[in-house]
C-alpha cells in the first residue's frame, strides 16, 4: 500500500488537556526517534509508552515534554507502525508538534486517511467499507469547505499572483524550448530566472514568517474583553471559560510569566488576552492608560466590549469605542436583569456596524447568542488576521515550506550553472505546490499561457 508516513492531530483541537499527534507508516518510529530525547524508540518494545523531550533537530531546542507510545505493525489500527505523541492540549503545543513531524518528512494525512489505511490494510472488514467511504467524503468535503472559508482572500490573491509570475517565467522557458527558432522572445537566461524567482522566494519567506507569527494559526484568536469597571468583564470571562473548558498553557520561552487562557468557542479558538488583569478586576484602560491600552488592543483580533444595561453610556464608554475603531468588535450589553438605563438608539449609533448582544451573566442569559456571534464573525472571514488564517492552514504552511524548498533547489541549480530546462523542473514544482494551496493545478494553464503570451506557429 502507500509507503509514506502520515501525521495528524488525532484529538479534537483545543478541547482536552492532552492532545495526540499520530504518525502512521514505515518511517513512523524512526521519524519520531529523530526528534525524541529519551529512550531509543527504535529499540523499545512494541505497545510501550515513554516519557521524554521533543527537540527540533534543526536547532536542538526543546519543543515539548511529551509521552510517546510506540506500536509496531501489524497489531495497530492501520496495521502499520504507529507512534502517538501525547503533548499539552494547547493549540500552540499541538501545532508545533505536528509541524515538527512534517518538517521531519511526514506527510499531513488526508481527511480520513488513517481509517482508509486501516481499511486497505485489511484491518477493517467489508461491512465497514461504506462507512469508510462516507467518512472520506464527509471529512474531505468539510475540510475543503473549511479550507476555502478560512483561506483569506488576500492570501489566495497573493499566491495567485506568485503563481502567475512563475507561470510567465515558465512560459518563456517553454517557448525557448518548443520554438527554438522563434526570435521574438528574450532568451530566458539563468540570470533573468534568478531575478524572477528570487522575488517569489522573498514573498514566500515573508508569508511563512507571518505564518510563524500568525497568531491565529498557532495561538488562537487573540481576544480582549474591555469595559468600565464592574460591567461584568470577569464574569464574562468566567462564563466563557466554564462553558468551554479552558485550557491553561504556560507559554514557554516568554520572560513574563503570563498565564493565558484558551477557550474553544464553537470551533473557534480564543486566546483571551491579558486575562490576568481582568481576573484581578482591574480595569485595562484605567490601569495602563488609553495610549498603552490602544497598543495592547492592537494585538487583539477580536474585542468584546462590555457595557452595563443598568447605566447610561458614559464618556469613558465612548472613548473605548474610539480606541477600538476599525477592529472587529462585539458589543455586549450586560446585566439585562437590571432595569434598563442604557439608550439603545444612542448605542446603535455609537456601535455602528458592530453586532450587539445582550446578556445577563448572573442569570446565564445570552451567552449562546454571544457564542453564535463570535463564530459568525470568524467564519465569515471578517476578522482581521494579518496575513494568515487559522489551523487547517497547517497544510498551507507545509505546502508553502515545500514550495520554498523546491524554489531553493531551483536557485541552487541556477547558481551551479545547470541548464535552464533542468532548473525549470523545480520551478514548475514550486508552481504546482502553490497551486495546491489555492486548489488549482491544471497543467493546461501553462500551455494556455504559452499560446496567449507568444505568437507561435507556422
Amino acid at each position, binding site marked *: 500500500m502507500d509507503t509514506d508516513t502520515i501525521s495528524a492531530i488525532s484529538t479534537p483541537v483545543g478541547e482536552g488537556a492532552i492532545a495526540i499527534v499520530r504518525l502512521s507508516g514505515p518511517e513512523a518510529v524512526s521519524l519520531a526517534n529523530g526528534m525524541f530525547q529519551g529512550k531509543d524508540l527504535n529499540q523499545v518494545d512494541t505497545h510501550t509508552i515513554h516519557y521524554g523531550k521533543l527537540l527540533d533537530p534543526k536547532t536542538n531546542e526543546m519543543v515539548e515534554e511529551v509521552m510517546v507510545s510506540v506500536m509496531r505493525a501489524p497489531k495497530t489500527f492501520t496495521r502499520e507502525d504507529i507512534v502517538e505523541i501525547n503533548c499539552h492540549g494547547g493549540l500552540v503545543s499541538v501545532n508545533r508538534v505536528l509541524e515538527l513531524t512534517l518538517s521531519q518528512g511526514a506527510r499531513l494525512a488526508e481527511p480520513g486517511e488513517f481509517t*482508509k489505511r486501516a481499511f486497505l490494510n485489511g484491518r477493517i472488514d467489508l461491512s465497514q467499507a461504506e462507512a469508510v*467511504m462516507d467518512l472520506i467524503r464527509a471529512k474531505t468535503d468539510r475540510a475543503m469547505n473549511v479550507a476555502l472559508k478560512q483561506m483569506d482572500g488576500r492570501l489566495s490573491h497573493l499566491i495567485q499572483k506568485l503563481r502567475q509570475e512563475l507561470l510567465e517565467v515558465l512560459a518563456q522557458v*517553454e517557448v525557448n524550448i518548443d520554438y527554438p527558432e522563434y526570435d521574438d522572445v528574450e532568451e530566458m537566461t539563468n540570470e533573468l530566472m534568478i531575478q524572477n524567482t528570487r522575488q517569489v522566494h522573498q514573498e514566500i519567506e515573508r508569508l511563512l514568517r507571518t505564518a510563524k507569527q500568525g497568531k491565529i494559526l498557532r495561538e488562537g484568536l487573540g481576544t480582549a474583553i474591555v469595559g468600565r469597571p464592574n460591567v461584568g468583564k470577569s464574569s464574562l470571562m468566567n462564563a466563557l471559560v466554564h462553558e468551554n473548558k479552558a485550557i491553561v498553557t504556560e507559554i514557554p520561552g516568554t520572560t513574563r510569566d503570563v498565564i493565558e487562557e484558551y477557550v474553544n468557542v464553537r470551533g473557534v479558538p480564543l486566546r483571551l488576552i491579558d486575562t490576568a488583569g481582568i481576573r484581578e478586576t482591574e480595569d485595562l484602560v484605567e490601569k495602563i492608560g488609553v495610549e498603552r491600552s490602544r497598543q495592547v488592543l492592537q494585538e487583539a483580533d477580536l474585542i468584546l466590549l462590555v457595557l452595563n444595561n443598568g447605566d447610561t453610556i458614559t464618556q469613558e464608554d465612548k472613548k473605548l469605542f474610539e480606541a477600538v475603531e476599525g477592529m472587529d468588535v462585539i458589543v455586549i450589553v450586560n446585566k439585562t436583569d437590571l432595569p434598563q438605563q442604557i439608550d439603545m438608539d444612542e448605542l446603535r449609533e455609537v456601535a455602528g456596524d458592530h453586532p450587539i448582544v445582550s446578556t445577563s451573566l448572573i442569570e446565564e442569559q445570552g451567552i449562546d447568542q454571544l457564542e453564535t456571534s463570535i463564530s459568525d464573525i470568524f467564519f465569515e472571514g471578517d476578522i482581521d488576521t494579518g496575513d494568515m488564517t487559522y489551523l487547517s492552514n497547517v497544510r498551507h504552511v507545509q505546502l508553502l515550506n515545500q514550495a520554498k524548498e523546491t524554489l531553493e533547489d531551483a536557485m541552487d541549480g541556477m547558481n551551479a550553472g545547470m541548464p535552464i530546462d533542468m532548473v525549470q523542473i523545480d520551478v514548475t514544482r514550486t508552481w504546482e505546490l502553490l497551486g495546491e494551496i489555492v486548489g488549482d493545478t491544471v497543467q493546461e494553464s501553462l500551455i494556455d499561457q504559452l499560446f496567449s503570451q507568444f505568437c507561435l506557429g507556422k
Partner: protein
Amino acid sequence: MNTFDAGHYDVIVVGAGHAGVEAGLAAARRGAKTLMLTLNLDMIAFMPCNPSIGGPAKGVVVREIDALGGEMAKVIDKTYIQMRLLNTRKGPAVRALRAQADKHLYIQEMKKVIENEPNLTIRQGMVKELMVEDGVCKGVVTETKAAYTADSVIVTTGTFMRSKVLIGDLAYESGPNNQRASTDLSVQLEELGIKMVRFKTGTPMRVNSHSIDYSKTEIQPGDEVPRAFSYETTEYIMDQIPCWLTYTNEFTHKIIDDNLSSSAMYSGMVKGTGPRYCPSVEDKIVRFHDKPRHQVFLEPEGRNTEEVYVQGLSTSLPENVQKQMIETVPGLEKAEIMRAGYAIEYDSVIPTQLWPTLELKAVEGLFTAGQINGTSGYEEAAAQGLMAGINAASKVLGKEPVILDRSQAYIGVLIDDLVTKGTDEPYRLLTSRAEYRLILRHDNADLRLTDIGYEIGMISEDRYARFQDKKRMINEEIERLKGITIKATDQVQEVIQQAGGSPLKDAVNAYDLLKRPEMKFEMVASLLEERKDLPEAVEEQVEIHTKYAGYIQKSEQQIERMRKMENKKIPEDIDYDDIHGIASEARDRLKEVRPLSVGQASRVSGVNPADVSILLVYIEQGKIAKVSGDEA
C-alpha cells in the same frame, strides 16, 4: 451492396498516411497477415504541410518509434535535405533533431519499405464501409465492392473525413491536395454511435524557387556534424540544402487586415476549431496586432523540385490576396505561387472514446490512429499508428496489449492525454506536456524502449545484441570513473580553469569531477591515464547520467510514486453507479473514460482526490469480497 469476397486478413489498415504506414508495418512485423488500403499509391506517407520531421518533443517521438521498431526515423534518415540538432545550448532533456525532408523521396522510400515487407499487402482503393456486427468490426468493403474480412481494422484516414477545402469564398469537398474526401466512413462512424468533432487546419502557399531573391533573406544551413534519427543509421547525408529566413512587415499586415473579411476563416465559413500553435497568418495579425513583423521560413520541398514551402504564411485568403500579401515580403516580391495556401476542415473522433490501446470502446476490433483522433502532425500520427498496429496484432495473436505510460515515452504522454483528457483543438505534442521530460530524452529513447521493442518482436536479435553492448559499456564506464582518483596537479587545475571552474582543493574521483556543470566528458577523459575507446553515444550517456544524476533521481522518485497508482488496476466491469459517495460529476466522467488504472482515473478532469480515495476503497472492497466469496 453487391460485394465480392476479397479474402481474409488478420489486420486491415485503412489509409497509408504517417499513421497508416506505421500501423501496417508494425502489425505485419509482429506476424499478423496485414492488408493496407489507401486512396492513392503515389501518395503514401505524403506530407501535406511542412516538409519537415522532428523538432522539440516530436523529434524525440521519432526516436521512440525507432526504438520500438517503427520506420519513420529510418526513412527520414535516407531522405533528408538538411538536419539540425535544436536546443544545443540547453540541457540534454530538451534537445531534439529536426530534418527538412525531400517529401517526394520520402514517399518513394516508404513505399519501397512497404512493398518489400513480408506479411504486408498494399492496395489502392477507397473503403466505403466497415462491416460491424453486434458491436464487433469484422472487416471492410471498398467502393469497388471488394469485401475483406479481418480480425482487427485500423482506420487512419487523417484529414480526409468529410473534409472540405477553403480558399477565400471557394469551398469544396476534398481531402488535402485535391484528393478525394472520405465521407461515407465518417457518416458510418457516427451511425455507430461514435461522437465526432470538427477541426480545421491550414497550409501556406508554395512558390517557385527561381522566383525568390535569396539575397534579401538570411541563410539557415544544416549542421555540419552528421546526425541521424535512427539508432541504426550509420551513413549520413552530407550534401545538405539550406533554408532561408525573411520577415513580414507592416505592408503585409495591412493587406491581411484590409482583406480579413474575405478569408474563409474569418468570413464564418469555417466552423471547425483550429490549433493555437499553428495559427494562420490571419490569426497572427488579429491576435498579436502589435507585433511589427513575423518570421517567414523558406523551405525547399525536395532535391528534384523547385517548389518552396513558405512557413509562416498559412492562410485561407483568396488567391489574389495571397499574391498581394506575399509580394510585400523581402525576397518574395516576384515570387510565383505554384499552389495557393488553403484551409481544410474535417471530422475527427473524440478520443476519450478509445481505450489506451487505441481500440474504440464501442466497437470491438476497430482501432483508430493518427489525425482522425484529433491530433495534428506527422510524428503524432506515426506514433499512434505504431501503437495501434502493435495492439491490433496483440489482439489477433492473443498477446498482451502494449500500453506505454507517461514516464516511458512521449508516445505514452500523447496517448494518455488523448484517451484520458481528450482535446478541444488539434493536439500537438509539446515538451511541457511531459511531466518527466528529463527522463524522456532524445538521447535515451533506445535505453527506454528497445527492451519493449524486442519483447514484442519488432527488434532483431542483431540489433538487440548491439543495444545490450551499449548498455554494458555505459555502466562499466560510470563504474570505472568512480574508481579513478584525480589529483589536484597543475595540469588538472589548468584544464578546470580553462573550462571556467573553480580549482580543486583536494583529489576527487573522476565521476565527481564530471559532475561539475562546466566539465565535459572530453575534458575529464583527457585527464585519465587510460582513455577507453567508446562510441560517442556511450560517452554522451555517461556524461548525462553523471552530471544530472541528482535531477534524474528526483524524477525517478516522482515516477515511482506515479507508478504505484498506475499499478492499481480498475476492473473493466466496474459499475460506477454502485460506488457510494463518489461525486456525480466524477461519476459521469469516469463512466465515459473508463480508466484502466487508478492513476489514469486521477487524471480525468472533474475527478478530485476524494473520489480517487473512494474509488481505491471500492476496488479493495471488491478484492476482499472475492476472497470472502471464495471461502464461502
